[in-house]
């Protein structure tokens, strides 16, 4: 076979354009125009925002939706770059790992909207008088909701690269840089994309929340779906809220179909398995792209660029020693740990000095008390959601035809920013004069309960049919069937869903425990409300205290409840 034959086989039949080309070309150009148009707006001075305030005219909504979408896009690009750098350093250097991985663990439990309080001030000061500062603060909020778990996924993949492939790269003299692009990144790809998708669905919540925010005297209203809803709440305009929800629905479906489906279908080739199995994920968008002729040729420069990048001679230090024989220097280890401890002590002292200047012990006790109330709320709500959604999820999951149709809906509901729907509930509470301490609580789980549902559906669908048949031939039914057969079978899936739901509920508490409709303000006692009020008042010491308490509670809750449950699920109950 001659070299030429291969090339033609790889690029497709001929370079003449076909019908599909026209369709895809329009899509590509349209996307470019939108990105440029949306991007131009961000460099405007801040006063521009005041001259053209957010208007409730529905014809503006497509543009607002575009701005919101662009923020999401920018955030995911930043998250990916961050992931590559952070995970690579943590995976390759033992000493860096000692600090970086626990740090990541803590960052994961920091409430994202609490973070936003500081970053808004920080970025506004960085670009005084420009829209860019506010835009960056919003993008950063979304970034913090995505980056940590993407990084964790990448780090874990990099640490679990199969040993034989690692030896093959060494044996064939691949440089560290080549190895990263040829082995580490492709191997991490499926996990990374799945996590990016999950983060993205969480991200809509925060982009909406971060578009209209008040920190002390600074009020930012960025044009977007979130600020549109904020305006609608202020003006008590219920139809506008429904328009916004409709726009969001469209945006999420488009994002899924045009961006993530194609990526997932494409990334299928990176799945690390030696035999072809199961059904490959499909995407009409990717098929469309693959059917085009000329546009496929357009991707050639990209693959050439990819090759060129991965073959660049970038000298990277080989940090993690491959030889087990020479243990690393103890002295440097001791110095390094000493340095970390000194840094920690200094940070603790700084924090103490800052907080003790304006807060007393009673403030700490109030924050902890509020934290306990929110903790009870989260626990009760997760329990209720479990009671409701586990039986329903099992019922759906055991019926494949139905599960096929419900599953995308459940995933969509998990992605839909529940805060858009809050006003509808608040209105009901106001109308019927319900107690906010009780009735505001369900808002926390409004958007996150779906994680439980779709994970349970997935678990029940994956339940082996031979076990079901065995159970029915043993005449297992009723309670015995639930507790001996199906619940242990779906347990690992349930725990995965419940962990996500509980983390999401903590985050949501900051916007769910305080709500307003026009001039009516509702407030439930809790840590979320504590942080929200402190943010609005610009009371930074209290914000820090609130975040710290929430961080500790979330971490403890994870360590003491979810991790042990997860471990049991993985060890005892994972099927197959």
């Amino acid at each position, binding site marked *: 076979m001659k*070299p030429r034959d291969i090339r033609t086989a790889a690029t497709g039949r001929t370079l003449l354009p076909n019908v599909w080309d026209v369709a895809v070309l329009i899509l590509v150009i349209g996307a470019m125009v939108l990105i440029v148009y949306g991007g131009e707006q961000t460099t405007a001075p801040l006063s521009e925002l005041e001259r053209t305030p957010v208007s409730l005219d529905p014809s503006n909504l497509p543009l607002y939706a575009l701005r919101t979408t662009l923020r999401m896009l920018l955030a995911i690009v930043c998250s990916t770059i961050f992931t590559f750098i952070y995970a690579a350093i943590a995976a390759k250097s033992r000493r860096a790992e000692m600090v970086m991985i626990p740090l990541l663990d803590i960052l994961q439990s920091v409430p994202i909207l609490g973070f936003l309080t500081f970053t808004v001030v920080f970025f506004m000061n960085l670009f005084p008088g420009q829209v860019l500062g506010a835009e960056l603060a919003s993008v950063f909020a979304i970034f913090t909701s995505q980056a940590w778990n993407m990084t964790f996924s990448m780090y874990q993949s990099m640490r679990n690269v199969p040993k034989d492939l690692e030896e*093959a790269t060494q044996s*064939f003299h*691949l440089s560290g840089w080549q190895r990263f692009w040829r082995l580490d990144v492709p191997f991490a790809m499926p996990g990374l994309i799945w996590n990016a998708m999950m983060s993205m669905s969480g991200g809509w919540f925060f982009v909406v929340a971060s578009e209209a925010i008040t920190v002390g005297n600074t009020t930012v209203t960025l044009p977007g779906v979130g600020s549109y809803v904020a305006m609608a709440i202020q003006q008590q305009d219920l139809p506008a809220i429904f328009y916004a929800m409709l726009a969001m629905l469209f945006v999420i479906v488009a994002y899924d179909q045009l961006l993530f489906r194609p990526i997932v279908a494409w990334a299928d080739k990176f799945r690390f*398995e030696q035999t072809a199995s199961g059904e490959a994920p499909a995407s009409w968008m990717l098929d469309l792209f693959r059917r085009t002729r000329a546009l496929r040729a357009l991707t050639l420069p990209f693959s050439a660029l990819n090759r060129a990048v991965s073959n660049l001679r970038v000298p990277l230090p080989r940090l993690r020693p491959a030889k087990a*024989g020479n243990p690393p220097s103890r002295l440097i280890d001791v110095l390094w740990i000493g340095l970390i401890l000194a840094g920690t002590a200094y940070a603790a002292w700084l924090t103490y000095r800052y907080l003790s200047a304006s807060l007393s012990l009673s403030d700490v006790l109030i924050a902890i008390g509020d934290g306990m109330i929110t903790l009870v709320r989260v626990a009760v709500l997760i329990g209720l959601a479990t009671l409701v959604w586990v039986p329903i999820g099992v019922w759906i999951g055991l019926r494949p035809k139905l599960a096929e149709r419900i599953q995308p809906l459940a995933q969509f509901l998990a992605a839909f920013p529940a805060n858009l729907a809050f006003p509808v509930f608040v209105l009901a509470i106001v109308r019927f004069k319900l107690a906010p301490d009780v009735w505001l609580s369900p808002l926390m789980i409004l958007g996150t309960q779906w994680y439980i549902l779709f994970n349970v559906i997935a678990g029940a669908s994956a339940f082996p049919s031979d076990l079901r048949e065995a159970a029915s031939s043993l005449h297992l039914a009723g309670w015995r069937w639930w507790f001996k057969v199906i619940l242990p079978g779906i347990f690992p899936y349930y725990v995965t869903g419940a962990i996500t739901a509980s983390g999401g509920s903590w985050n949501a508490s900051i916007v769910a425990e305080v709500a307003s409709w026009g001039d009516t303000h509702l407030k439930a006692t809790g840590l979320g409300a504590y942080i929200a009020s402190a943010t609005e008042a610009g009371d930074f010491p209290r914000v820090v205290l609130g975040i710290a308490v929430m961080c500790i509670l979330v971490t403890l809750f994870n360590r003491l409840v979810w991790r042990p449950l997860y471990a049991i699920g993985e060890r005892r109950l994972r099927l197959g």
Partner: protein
Amino acid sequence: MPSVNAACVSVDEETIVLDQPSALIDIRGVCRSFPKGSGEQLLVLDKVDLSIRSGEIVGLLGRSGSGKSTLLRIIAGLVTPSSGSATCRGETIIGPPNGVAMVFQSFALFPWLTVLQNVELGLEALGIDATERRKRALAAIDLIGLDGFESAFPKELSGGMRQRVGFARALVVHPDLLLMDEPFSALDVLTAETLRTDLIDLWIEGRLPIKSVLMVTHNIEEAVLMCDRILVFSSNPGRVAAEIKVELPHPRNRLDPYFRQFVDNIYARMTQRAEPKAPSIEGIPGTGIGMTLHHVSSNVLSGLIETLAGPPYHGHADLPVLASQLQFEADEILHLGESLQLLRFAQLSEGDLMLTEAGKRFAHLDTDARKKLFAEHLLTYVPVMGLIRRVLDERPSHIAPATRFRNELEDYMSEDYASETLKTVVSWGRYAELFAYDEQSETFSLENPG
């Protein structure tokens, strides 16, 4: 480790005489140890000498744990020796040397690259330009019989085809030395044989762009079929126990009496050490608590005893015959034989496996009586079993955590071997109903779960 092995180390004097500076690979007094669970060092390779010259296929034959794979990785530059010198063309090996390519047992193909891209990978790392790369890759694919599969992904190929990609990827860089780490052991019998023959044919015809081959194997027939020189390794620690020259002309015939003789000979050498030398050793790796146990199911042991007791063996079998009848690799049959010998149900000697009186009795007992006999032998001949039982009897609660015994085992062996030994202890102890074990809490107890 005690120095029982000294008697059987019979390194060919010739090696040293023939050793010239032109040797491709020169290994002198190489030792390698790995840290044990207790932090001490476990010696896996002990003073190994080896030189590889141009134009020969050398085989490293030995049991698992004999350090032969470690030696291969030292030559590949993936592992550094703890002491001694390893040189390639006179230069000390630091990192993978140029002109050495490797074929892996698990193929080690990149699942996201096509056959062609996998083959080109090594050339890309060398910075060879695209046209030359393509030309050489296609030539290698052509040579190894993969024509038409260039754009396939590894998961679409059968095991044999995948290993052909592994060969093409190694050959394309035109290495002086091809290293093969049990390249056929992940393949089924038929596929492995085809691939071996193809490779040997290409080698004899001089069409392989390589000068020498070093292969690791635990398959005795494979070594005799392919190699010009075989180094037989003994385990614990790994040493060269013997060097055997195979001067049969290629293509070799497995049914040739000379061939059979070679195979029998090597079986005998590999079981030779298993003969009791001193009362404290008795051919079992490690002694007392430090005895390494390989996990063999009690079902397989019973089955083997029954087979041995029945016709045509009547209590006495030739290992190669037994191995081929039961479809076992040499390595596996030796493990089984050693486990039986350890429990005094059989005796290994000169490539033969003979049932002892206890073994013959075992074959004719019913399940409960077998368990009882098994338990007796365990307590008498496996010290760690006795220890666990004693500790459980002494403690008022009759409960003991597994870590207590794991730590003790790790004083003698690596972490991996300690877990394997513990796993064996649990499975044999459960069968013999000596104690109960709870996997969740990792505790031994005397409780009988009803």
